C-alpha cells in the first residue's frame, strides 16, 4: 500500500508539472509565431504598393 501510495503521489506531481510545462511550451511557440507574423505584416505595411502587385 505504501509503495503504491508513494508511486501515485509521484504521478500526481508529474501530471501537475507536465500540464503546466506543456502550456508554457504552447505559449512560447505561440509567442514566436506571433513575433514572426508581426515582422512580416510590418514589412507589408511599410511598403504596401510592392505587396499589392503580388496580390
Amino acid at each position, binding site marked *: *500500500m*505504501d509503495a*503504491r*501510495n*508513494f508511486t*501515485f*503521489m509521484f*504521478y*500526481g*506531481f508529474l*501530471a*501537475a508539472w507536465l*500540464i*503546466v510545462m506543456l*502550456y*508554457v511550451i504552447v*505559449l512560447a511557440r*505561440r*509567442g514566436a509565431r*506571433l*513575433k514572426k*507574423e*508581426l515582422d512580416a*505584416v*510590418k514589412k*507589408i*505595411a511599410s511598403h*504596401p*504598393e510592392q*505587396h*499589392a502587385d503580388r*496580390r
Partner: protein
Amino acid sequence: MRDKLAIGLAAAASALLANNLYQMFMVLPDEALQGAIYRILFFHAPAAMVGMIGYFVALTFSVLYLSSKNFLYDSLAASIVEVSLVFSLVNIVTGSIWARIIWGIWWTWDYRLTSALVCILIFFGYLVMRRAIDEPTQRARLSSALCIFGCVDVVIVWKSIEWFRNQHPGPVLDFRTGGGKMDPAYSHVFWLNFLAILLMGVALVLIRTRQEATAREIDSLRRLAHTAA
C-alpha cells in the same frame, strides 16, 4: 516593463515552490490516514482556487467589456480564462490520481467533480468559440456572455461541498470551517503553495496578455496595409 514583471513573478514563484517542495518532503510527516499521497492536495486545491479566482477576474473584465466596449478588457478576460483553464485541468487530473488511491476509483459523478468537469468544458468551449468567430465585436460580446454564464457554474463548484452530500471531502480550510480541521503546519505550507501557484498564474497571464496585444497589433496593421493597397 511587463516582461520584467513576468520574469520577476516567475522567479519568485519558482523560489517559493522550491521552498515548499522542501517543506512537503523533508519537514512534514506523512498524514496518519492517507500516507504520502496527501501531498497531492498541496497542488490540487490551490490550483482549483487559482482557477476559480481567475474565472471571477475574467468575469469582471467581461462585464467591463460589455459596459465599455473596450477590446482591452476582452483580451484580458480571454488571457485569464486560458490560464485558469490550465489550473482547472491540474486540479481535476491530480484529484483523480488522489481518488484512485483513497477512494479506489478514478472518477465518480458526484456534485463537486461533475460541476468541476462542466466548468472545464464551458471554458474550453469559450476558447474554441473565440477561434471560430472572426468578427472582433461579435467574438467579444459572445465570449463575455459565455464567461458570465460559466461563472454561475464556478459558484456551484465552490459551494457544492457545502450544499450537497458528496463523495468529495467537505471543506477543511480554516476560512471556510472556522478552523480546527487542518494541522497548522500543513495549513502554513498549503497557503505558501497557493501563493506560489497564484504568482505563477499572474506571470502566465502577463505573458498571454502581451500575446493578445501583439495579435491586435497584427490585425490593425493588416487592415492598414489592406486599405493602403
